[in-house]
């Protein structure tokens, strides 16, 4: 069965520092991969997605992610973190085996804290 693991439950970085959030997936074929961000009390906002093609994907708010098939990873990166990036980040994989239901499998999330 497909699964998504975000190994880091909580990460703290200083403002201006670089960021990398880890995501590992288990899937038998080329997956659809997503990163979402959730601010406190809000819904989830799509940051970026990978379906095929270039393995380095650019998203909104200066984020990027790289799909590495050999490592089954889709890590999210940002070169310089801003205080407004403090939020919860979710990695997800598209469940292609679900006959066009569009279901996603989410990781447990990583909470990002930004120190001034």
């Amino acid at each position: 069965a497909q699964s998504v693991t975000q190994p880091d439950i909580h990460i703290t970085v200083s403002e201006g520092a670089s960021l990398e959030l880890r995501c590992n997936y288990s899937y038998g074929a080329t997956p659809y991969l997503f990163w979402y961000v959730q601010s406190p009390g809000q819904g989830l906002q799509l940051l970026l997605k990978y379906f095929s093609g270039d393995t380095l994907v650019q998203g909104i708010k200066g984020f990027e992610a790289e799909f590495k098939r050999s490592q089954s990873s889709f890590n999210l990166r940002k070169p310089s973190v801003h205080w407004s990036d403090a939020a919860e980040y979710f990695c997800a994989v598209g469940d292609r085996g679900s006959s066009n239901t569009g279901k996603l499998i989410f990781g447990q999330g990583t909470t990002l804290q930004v120190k001034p």
Partner: protein
Amino acid sequence: SQTIHQWPATLVQPVGSPLSLECTVEGTSNPNLYWYRQAAGRGLQLLFYSVGIGQISSEVPQNLSASRPQDRQFILSSKKLLLSDSGFYLCAWSPSAGQETQYFGPGTRLLVL
């Protein structure tokens, strides 16, 4: 452009009372629709999804039910709320026919006392 609405934004209900949360999508037709629950400090749990009017699939056994009376309307209900039903409820939609990007509503905070 497409938008998704949820209401109410916040709800405080006594144990044993009924529940009705509503989700509507504008600007698209025949979307796939989803209900998630997010308990405090935890990830997202898919509760129900629907690929069409009257078609509801349940992901986990629970005290809740869902209905889709219209193409772009998705309702989450309960006849008698439990304390464990407290949480943050998120509705999402995705285009049908294999595109799996989901777009989320603003959520409803439910507190059962």
